[in-house]
């Protein structure tokens, strides 16, 4: 008897008792569907996190210097030197000087971010200018009181005609020389386009701080992010004579750390969901044992007519595996439906566009696992059927 025929026979027996088969499958269906949704949720979260980081720039490293109280300090020239000397790792650098207290006309804007940056900053962030010009080297040199503003401010306060107008920060006036192209999906207060950029030298003077304590550095390639971070740490440790007065954070590293956290969480959740697969397997074993008992006479007849133990074993194993795999397929379909529903739910409730996406690998695995569970848990009942004594089986009522 061929495998194909065993399979056809298994399908027949399954169809003959649909309700029972469905109930038997239920554990597998729930298990597979929940594992799929959880893994899909994990994928969605990772994609979401990755996208968020990418919009911040995964090729950037943030440096914060806290060495103000120590005798030594690291100047911006020294920072630029480190970057230039290690051009294999580093691309560009910009100091970051945060200010607050924006006023346009008589209106105070408390959500607007004000940052002093270098002329390279826009390039590093891949920001572009829609009107006027960006910040330039000469602005830094001469500590000019100029600024580039975001599209939100331009639209809201200047009606889109901001060039040459004045923005006040900390009481000082700055002339708008450029407007940044819209970055965020929507224009809103406190969003990506509610911003003012000043030359960092001007900003440092305005802040009254002697040294600049914050920098952003871009690496030549994301693959070098880890090494670049080490190079930077080593150089700073040497300058300071200590490694505890600064912090260097690589976005790639942060992304990896967050993703591995999500991975751990998802693995734990999926493992819990997988318990129901085991329960489903036991359900299959249980029903197969019942089925073997019910079909004792049939097994006896088949054996009398020449069925070998191997043939009977195969028949029952295939039946269990088919039941389980069919449950797996239904589970996959259900998993898909639930994933789509979850995507819609998350999008509307949390107002973030996070797609719950079950991966192809997880689907293939889900199917494989469900078939394997059938084989595993079907084996014992099948063995029992195969080893029935034909005389006893024939006499069974």
């Amino acid at each position, binding site marked *: *008897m061929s495998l194909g025929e065993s399979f056809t026979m298994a399908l027949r027996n399954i169809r003959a008792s649909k309700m029972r088969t469905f109930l038997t499958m239920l554990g597998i269906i729930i298990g597979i569907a929940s594992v799929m949704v959880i893994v899909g949720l994990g994928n969605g979260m990772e994609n979401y996190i990755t996208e968020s980081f990418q919009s911040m720039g995964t090729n950037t490293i943030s440096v914060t210097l806290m060495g103000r109280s120590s005798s030594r300090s690291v100047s911006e020239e020294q920072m630029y030197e480190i970057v230039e000397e290690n051009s294999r790792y580093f691309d560009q650098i910009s100091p970051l000087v945060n200010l607050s207290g924006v006023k346009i006309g008589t209106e105070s804007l408390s959500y607007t971010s004000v940052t002093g940056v270098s002329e390279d900053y826009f390039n590093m962030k891949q920001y572009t200018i829609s009107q006027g010009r960006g910040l330039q080297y000469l602005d830094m040199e001469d500590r000019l009181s100029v600024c580039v503003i975001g599209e939100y401010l331009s639209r809201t306060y200047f009606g889109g005609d901001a060039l040459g107008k004045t923005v006040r920060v900390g009481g000082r006036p700055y002339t708008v020389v450029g407007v940044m192209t819209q970055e965020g999906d929507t224009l809103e207060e406190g969003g990506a386009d509610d911003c003012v950029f000043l030359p960092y030298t001007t900003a440092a003077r305005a802040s009254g701080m002697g040294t600049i304590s914050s920098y952003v550095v871009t690496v030549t390639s994301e693959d070098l992010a880890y090494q670049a971070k080490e190079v930077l740490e080593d150089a700073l440790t040497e300058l300071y004579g200590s490694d505890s007065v600064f912090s260097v954070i690589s976005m790639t590293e942060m992304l990896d750390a967050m993703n591995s956290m999500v991975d751990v969480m998802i693995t734990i959740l999926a493992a819990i969901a997988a318990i129901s697969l085991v329960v489903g397997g036991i359900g299959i074993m249980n029903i197969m044992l019942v089925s073997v008992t019910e079909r004792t006479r049939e097994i006896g*007849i088949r054996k009398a*007519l020449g069925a070998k133990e191997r043939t009977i074993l195969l028949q029952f194993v295939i039946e269990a595996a088919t039941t389980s795999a069919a449950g797996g397929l239904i589970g996959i379909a259900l998993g898909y439906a639930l994933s789509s529903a979850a995507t819609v739910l998350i999008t509307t409730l949390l107002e973030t566009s996070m797609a719950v996406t079950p991966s192809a690998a997880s689907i293939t695995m889900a199917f494989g696992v469900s078939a394997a569970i059938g084989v595993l848990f079907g084996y014992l009942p099948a063995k029992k059927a195969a080893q029935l004594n034909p005389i006893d089986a024939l006499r069974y009522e």
Partner: protein
Amino acid sequence: MMEPLIVFDHLCKFYQMGDETVRAADDISFSIDRGEFVAIVGKSGSGKSTCMNIIGCLDVPTSGRYLLHGADVGSLSKNELAETRNKMLGFIFQQYNLLPKLSVLENVEVPLMYAGVPRGERRRRAEEALERVGLIDKRKNRPNQLSGGQQQRVSIARALAGDPPVILADEPTGALDSKTSREVLGMLQQVHREGRTVVLITHDNSIAVTAPRIIRLEDGKVVYDGPAHGRNALVGGEEAAG
């Protein structure tokens, strides 16, 4: 001279029931030639089913030898026993033992399927066998849609489909009325006339006489082995009811 097809050589089958040993077959020797029609007859508990199980390769003797077509069945593995049942024997049971979920045609196909006959030829041979028992028009029915007599004819078709040399019928008329019984017995005689070896097992003398040769068992021993019309052939048998 041609070797006999079935040989029981001082064959014993004992069952251990607690301290007691039940001698279900006690030193039985006989041989059946190819093409013979033999009835094994005896009262209930005389050892007929035990003999039938051994002839049918469903069971092996405790001691002694059972040779089927020259091969010692006692030395066969489980797989070889299954193969022997499939190739050498056609079973006809008292309870028909058809598979209820399969159609009549599929039931007849089962032994051919285990013999590895390809699908097309299997179908053809099964249809041929059904035609011989006159049930070809019922081939799509389920067994439970047929009368007892018809079901037994299906089981005869199933026994014949694989073209085995030996047909083994265990109380084939036990569940049938006398008219259909005669029909079924007539069919067995027909099968015998076609050259097959038929072993008929029954407790009923009036059925046993269908066969030209009778082997009578009592308490696991052969008490008569000879022609059905011989003296003592029917001694001690249970008379047919009705």
